[in-house]
């Protein structure tokens, strides 16, 4: 029964924090359905509602409205059964400081009903797989941030969860360690692990996720594969011009240029979505110069998730 159900499904899921006088809507009517084996990303700036969503799906935040199901089970009605089927890597280091690296894995397995023998084997296997074997008997207190992160992921996998949750797994981690973690996560995906990742790094979502929901103010703004999301712009190139002075005259002029699909203004920046790059940039610079505007900076690049976010919200993305 459980295998037929979607690993994660939400219906109008909603969370409001606060008391009567002061309330904050953290998640506002979330509808998601994640497929088995899928690597799914929740992408959005800080405060978009990503962690609250993970909290509700993993039973530590109780929803104000709507419903959420893990493998067909309602998270509110059956929290213990839901917890048995999930593995969670939270944002902060939640390793057991009183135990060794190996014991962190072993006891986690025992908590989840894995036999003593199997827990031992899993602990050894995972330490090997995550290249932590040398540190097996070290106290976790002494681990660096990157190693601790790897151990947290290993720990979440001891009981072979149906769904793996990763809440901002690479925030505050150096770039090299981040690339290593991406490798580990890509391998897990290949092995068929259903995963829900939250991140505020556009590049991370683009690299790892099959599908992404872009979240802002607790609402899904767009949902699709990174490729689909970028295609919604209808442009192959995004040109940005930074103008010294008032660029409003240029906006009108730019719309008339052949190959331009849309123009947006963001302060002193004029952002032009074009179906082709040849000639458009130079025409824009010529037009600006003709109006007596000074172009302080010009750039041209293929659309990224960042530009998708920009065009959806009309504001700069803050990582």
């Amino acid at each position, binding site marked *: 029964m459980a295998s037929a159900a979607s690993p994660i499904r939400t219906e109008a899921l909603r969370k409001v*924090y606060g008391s009567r006088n002061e309330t904050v809507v953290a998640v506002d009517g979330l509808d998601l359905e994640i497929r088995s084996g899928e690597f799914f990303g929740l992408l959005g700036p800080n405060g978009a509602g990503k962690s609250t969503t993970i*909290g509700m799906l*993993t*039973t*530590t*935040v*109780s929803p104000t409205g709507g419903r959420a199901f893990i493998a067909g089970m309602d998270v509110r009605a059956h*929290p*213990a*059964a839901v*917890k*048995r089927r*999930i593995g*969670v890597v*939270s944002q*902060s*280091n*939640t*390793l*057991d*400081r*009183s*135990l060794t690296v190996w*014991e962190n894995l072993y*006891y986690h397995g*025992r*908590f*989840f*009903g894995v036999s003593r023998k199997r827990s031992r084997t899993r602990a050894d296997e995972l330490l090997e797989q995550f290249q932590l074997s040398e540190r097996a008997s070290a106290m976790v207190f002494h681990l660096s941030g990157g190693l601790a992160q790897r151990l947290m992921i290993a720990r979440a996998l001891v009981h072979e969860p149906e769904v793996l949750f990763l809440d901002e797994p690479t925030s505050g981690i150096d770039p090299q360690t981040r690339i290593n973690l991406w490798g580990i996560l890509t391998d897990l995906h290949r092995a068929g692990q259903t995963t829900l990742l939250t991140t505020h790094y556009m590049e991370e979502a683009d690299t790892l996720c099959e599908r992404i929901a872009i979240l802002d103010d607790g609402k899904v703004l767009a949902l699709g594969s990174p490729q689909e999301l970028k295609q919604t712009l209808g442009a192959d190139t995004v040109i940005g011009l930074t103008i010294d002075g008032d660029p409003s005259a240029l906006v009108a002029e730019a719309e008339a240029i052949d190959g331009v699909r849309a123009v947006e203004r963001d302060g002193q920046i004029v952002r032009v979505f074009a179906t082709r790059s040849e000639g458009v940039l130079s025409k824009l610079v010529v037009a600006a110069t003709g109006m007596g505007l000074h172009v302080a900076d010009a750039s041209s690049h293929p659309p990224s998730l960042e530009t998708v976010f920009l065009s959806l919200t009309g504001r700069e993305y803050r990582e």
Partner: protein
Amino acid sequence: MKAQAETFLALLARDVRVLRRQLGQFLIRTIMQPLLFVFVFAYVFPKIGQGFQGGSGGVSFTTVLVPGLIAVAINFQGIQAVALPLVQEFSFSKEIEDRVLAPIPVWMVGLEKIAAGAVQSLLAAGVVFPIVFLVHAPGAAPSVHIHDVPLFIPALLFACLLAAALGLFIGTVIDPRKITLLFAVVVIPLTFLGCIYYPWARLTPIPWLKYFVLINPLVYMSEGLRASLTPELPHMPVWAFMLALVGGSIGLTFVSLRTFTRRVVT
């Protein structure tokens, strides 16, 4: 149901593993205070002729102290073993976030903490007993033996349970930033007003104090042990302390599991 029991036992096994690793620390924090106490009051005082007598009937002060100091050890360990780690987990180490993801209802995670705390309180009682029994000046030996086993065992076990439940309650309601006040505001008043150094019945000359201390759970722990270890000393009626120990354990467990759940599930 079986799966949940397994998880509960695995959580306990983890706590026992940690206790074994930190046994030295456990012994030092358990032994130090009662050892120094009996050293000064049961050895030094009689030797230098400074008087503390147990009062009427020629009962020595050491006899008064034995059940009292065991009760303090139980109570102190319950707070130390449950409340302090919990305060840490709520503030800088976020370990609690992972522990509540164990596949049992959240209240059972709290119940396991009470169980582990009660075990440590029981161990503390076992460690402290020989010390307070044996350390004394010649001629100042306490008159102690287990007079009433069927009374002693439940009194001891419920004292441990009550101490651990108190620990969970304190750990879930105290603001981590104010943890330094724990000793000044909770531990020390409980101890000095816990009928440790005097039997409750002896407070009759100070009626307001006699009734005021009844809000202190440590009073019932001391009196329960006094009734079963040193019955020649005056003590509270059995029904009174048993009612408080059993009722208090159940009530405080219930309340602390609620405060715990509220604290971890937002």
